[in-house]
């Protein structure tokens, strides 16, 4: 039951990834089409901070962070756990993957928050 649930989430987050990663690519590579700024400008420090100040950016990036990390790390765990290993070693793999995921999620959230709360004009 537990494995079924974990795998279902692996699939359920996919629509989120498709939409948000699509948006991310649009912002980065099709900035002239969608935002009227050049691709170089889209990656400027000021432009990035400007973008990061909107609440929707804050929420969507954290959502993408969570969804893509879960999907990717669950996939990686599956790949590793196909190898022959004792249950104890399997447990260690699981715990390591969870720790990496939580750390990167916390760090990424902090960075996104940092951008969101960057002092205007500073």
């Amino acid at each position: 039951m537990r494995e079924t649930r974990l795998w279902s989430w692996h699939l359920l987050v996919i629509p989120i990834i498709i939409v948000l990663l699509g948006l991310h690519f649009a912002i980065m590579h099709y900035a002239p089409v969608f935002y009227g700024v050049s691709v170089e400008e889209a990656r400027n420090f000021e432009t990035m901070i400007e973008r990061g100040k909107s609440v929707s950016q804050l929420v969507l990036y954290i959502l993408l962070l969570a969804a893509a990390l879960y999907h990717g790390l669950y996939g990686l765990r599956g790949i590793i756990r196909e190898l022959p290993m004792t249950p104890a070693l399997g447990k260690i793999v699981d715990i390591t993957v969870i720790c990496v995921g939580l750390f990167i999620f916390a760090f990424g959230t902090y960075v996104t928050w940092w951008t969101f709360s960057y002092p205007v004009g500073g």
Partner: protein
Amino acid sequence: MNSKKSTAYNNRLGIKGWVYAGKYTFERYLYLAHRLTGMGLIAYMLLHILETANRMRGVVAWEGLMGLFALPLFKMIEYALFAAAVFHALNGVRLLMTELGFFLGRPKEPVYPYSSSIKRHRPLTYIIMALASLIIILGGSSLFFP
């Protein structure tokens, strides 16, 4: 090899089990590519979050990094990443349809000439892969010839 109680599924082939298959069909290559692109994407994403955190070190650090990424080498890497993401996403949609049972056709009696669900699914597989190739080529043109 060790026959002691191990995990539920004992892959005695080890890493070879990742790539071993009696017969390499089209879908088998797609599986390998899906796995490789999946691992590439998660590796990239972990680095990406550490890398974009450089913004916290200020304008100079950030612009320096972006200047580096403007080099042709990084353009190539970025294109490879784009291609990997497009392939993984579209092939992933195919996997979703397969796993959830869409477009597999009705089960049939195994009477010669055999028709497996994989074979019945294959025209769709070709269409999806053609679409992925098209997007990858078009995406490339906008990256290299802005």
